């Protein structure tokens, strides 16, 4: 799941989510269908409080940079948004064919493409990008599925350390890319939409400086980039719309500005005075602004789906007694926390399953007791369970961000509720930056609230959820909910994952419910996308794959 770089960490690693369809259109051809009413020209300004830390394609995993890079980088495959639904379409290559043993994928380039400097995109560049993505020490933030799925992925350390000889990827002729896997990976074509797989010519790889001006293949290219502050994009003259089934080039330029006060930014966008009409704020709309979203301003709200779920995780290794976990669930003050967190039906929906509504296979089964994402919590009931289990005074501990009020408040509310239920609570405040490493350290002396606190689909299938979060290996990968180490469960999950996508879909729900019944994570809420756009912004639709507005379709109305 793509965590977002948003700073309010108790919301965890971001995102949002709803009904996604694993739709593919292997035959989509450029140019992309015109957006109705679209006009050309102007500069679109995008503002946000959160700052993407890097725009190196290999290092990109967060939703915001992911969306931004859709404007600049073409990847082997890509999503197009059709009627608000993401559809996987060929981009630089077709959607690939898999060998019978499911361990070799072949992708063929669909035409000839140029970089912004006019040179041709070679298939070797695609291969090089894949190799580069193994330099995980240099690009630690990038997606890491290749490390476990690709052949020798656990051994190869990337071209800088281990040179070009990597057996997991090979090219054939001028247009064929072959990827060898260590184990079946049915969703590989989805995975190849990540910017990490955009072609990078080896000769032009300036390593850690590449992010300052990565070579564009998309409709826009870097004009000026100030890391952490601003980015302007200008038109890429060497982009050919006729080869691109997903992107447009309506605006003349894009200007991204990061930092600033959330509400101030959004208020300005809402006011749309002068230049602000051309801007869009992609942070989720702040609850305090919601009363204004009536009348004309209601139209400025861009709603969409988002692929994420937030939970409160409990470490089953440390809280071994399920009754304690049930007691926590019983006492859990969902409603108070939601209100404190500023949740509302624009931005969220109480969760009761693991798979969010957008993931095919999501089934809204009857929520298990105390796992519906709502309710005031029942301290008395919880205390009873705890007493019965003989664990009154059991210590629950977690980290929270003590530099921001909302996480502090949430921690306090949670602490109060659990204390009332007879637990002993130890809430440990740490600084924002510390928090990331602390909650990511599974050996840290806390038994709840470890990372990831939220999860978003990397692609719309159950296999980007259950196998990632609940298998025993998840612990080593630092992406475990509940720290389950159950070989039987592992096997069940693997079995489903190895099925072809369409067959697997139906089977995820049952597993979902089963895991839920183990009380390993208290589901809290699914996210929705709700951002504000200036009055002059057109074509802003939600990109459900990342829970952001879909930039390639945006234009200025005048």
């Amino acid at each position, binding site marked *: 799941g793509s965590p977002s770089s948003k700073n309010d960490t108790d919301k965890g690693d971001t995102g949002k989510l709803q009904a996604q369809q694993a739709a593919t259109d292997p035959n989509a051809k450029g140019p992309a269908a015109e957006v109705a009413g679209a006009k050309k020209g102007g500069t679109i300004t995008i503002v946000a409080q959160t700052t993407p830390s890097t725009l190196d394609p290999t290092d990109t995993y967060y939703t915001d940079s992911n969306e931004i890079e859709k404007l600049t980088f073409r990847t082997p495959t890509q999503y197009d948004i059709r009627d608000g639904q993401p559809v996987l379409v060929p981009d630089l290559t077709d959607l690939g064919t898999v060998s019978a043993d499911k361990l070799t994928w072949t992708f063929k380039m669909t035409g000839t493409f140029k970089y912004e400097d006019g040179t041709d995109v070679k298939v070797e560049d695609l291969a090089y990008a894949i190799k580069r993505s193994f330099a995980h020490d240099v690009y630690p933030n990038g997606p890491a599925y290749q490390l476990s799925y690709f052949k020798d992925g656990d051994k190869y350390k990337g071209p800088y350390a281990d040179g070009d000889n990597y057996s997991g990827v090979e090219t054939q002729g001028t247009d064929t890319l072959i990827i060898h896997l260590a184990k079946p990976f049915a969703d590989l074509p989805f995975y190849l939409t990540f910017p990490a797989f955009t072609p990078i010519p080896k000769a032009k790889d300036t390593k850690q400086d590449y992010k300052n001006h990565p070579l564009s293949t998309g409709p826009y290219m870097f004009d000026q980039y100030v890391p952490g502050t601003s980015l302007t994009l200008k038109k890429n003259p060497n982009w050919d719309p006729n080869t691109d089934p997903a992107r447009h080039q309506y605006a003349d330029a894009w200007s991204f500005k990061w930092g600033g006060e959330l509400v101030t930014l959004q208020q300005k966008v809402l006011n749309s005075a002068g230049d602000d009409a051309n801007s869009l704020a992609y942070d989720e709309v702040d609850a305090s602004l919601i009363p204004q979203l009536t009348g004309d301003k209601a139209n400025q709200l861009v709603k969409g789906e988002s692929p994420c779920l937030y939970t409160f995780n409990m470490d089953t290794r440390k809280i071994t007694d399920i009754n304690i976990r049930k007691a926590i669930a019983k006492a859990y003050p969902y409603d108070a926390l939601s209100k404190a967190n500023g949740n509302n039906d624009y931005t969220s929906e109480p969760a009761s399953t693991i798979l969010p509504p957008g993931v095919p296979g999501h089934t809204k089964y009857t929520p298990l007791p105390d796992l519906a994402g709502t309710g005031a919590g029942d301290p008395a009931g919880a205390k009873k369970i705890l007493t019965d289990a003989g664990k009154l005074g059991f210590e629950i501990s977690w980290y929270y961000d003590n530099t921001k009020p909302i996480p502090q*408040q949430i921690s306090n509310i949670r602490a109060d509720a659990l204390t009332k239920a007879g637990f002993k609570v130890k809430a440990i405040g740490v600084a924002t930056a510390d928090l990331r490493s602390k909650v990511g350290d599974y050996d840290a002396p806390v038994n709840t609230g470890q990372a990831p606190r939220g999860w978003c689909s990397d692609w719309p299938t159950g296999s980007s959820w259950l196998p990632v979060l609940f298998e025993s290996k998840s612990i080593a990968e630092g992406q475990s909910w509940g720290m389950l180490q159950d070989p039987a469960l592992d096997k069940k999950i693997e079995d489903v994952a190895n099925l072809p996508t369409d067959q697997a879909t139906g089977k995820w729900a049952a597993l979902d419910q089963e895991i839920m019944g183990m009380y390993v994570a208290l589901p809290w809420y699914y996210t929705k996308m709700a951002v504000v756009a200036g009055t002059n912004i057109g074509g802003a639709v939600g990109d459900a794959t990342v829970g952001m507005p879909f930039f390639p379709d945006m234009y200025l109305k005048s």
Partner: protein
Amino acid sequence: MEPLIEEAALEPKGASIDAMTAPTGDLKKVETRHKSPTQIALARLRKDRLAMVCLGIFIFFILIAVFAPLLAKLEGQDTTTLHQDLIDEYGFPTISFTSEHWFGIEPRLGRDLFARFVYGARPSLIVAISVTFITAVIGVCMGLLSGFLGGWIDRVISWVIDFVLSLPYLLFAIAAPAVILSVMGDNPTEADVSQVTRSRFIALILVLSFFGWASLARLIRGEVLSLREREFIAAARVLGVPTHKVLFKELLPNLVAPIIIATSLALPTYIVAEAGLTFLGVGLVEPTPSWGLTISNATTYYRADPLYLWLPVLAISILVLALSLLGDSIRDAFDPRTRR
């Protein structure tokens, strides 16, 4: 300065030694009272109605802080109870001022604003007053030593003063609490809420004190440099008065006025600084009720729930205004040249 008493004497020529002692019955005898310059200044201050009003406001806020529990009890609320039943689905309070919640409640959480307001005066005032006190003591001592002893001590202290004044204090203030926390042995892995609150409090006071004493020290040093040249200091030395007595018995009483003035002007600065640092996220932490925290939280609601923001802002502004005016009045009262 004119003498306050006019006592002309008349004696036969020649007996001039006693010329000034015996007053003549002729003159309107101005009543004489024994007043120190401080007393005179205070007397003038008492006559200054504006100053008294400002003092009243300051005392009023102090009383609020002191009697916060009582006031909250009077209202029947506390600072932490969530009244989420009074919050709508978007987090907005459904009530404004009621007899139960005098100032309404917080959005999102529904905590009682009046209780938080009265309790919130405490950290502001405690931080401001203790920092003012600490900086005054350090600043005065450093300034006295530096100005009076001169030589290398003066050079060292002056340099340190320059140094501290050259540091961008807020940058340090932002960076330091984390460090102070760990230095104080509050291993973050162990710290619980109350520990964090306490250490933030101490960190805040330490940081503000560290940066606050220098300007006072510079001021005092300047005063001492000019006082040092005054002949009464030489007079004391001629009489063989030891240095420490010269410093504290002769010099210090003359610095009372600048110290009081500087202090009264520093107090509002620290009130604002506490709020500002909290606003930047490096001040106090939840659930401590503090005006700074409230303001910081409320800024997003400036439009949706204006009173939430403006009540503490108004409180701070009024308090600061009162203190600044009081400072001005004190300055005027201590300055014999001002006659209003």
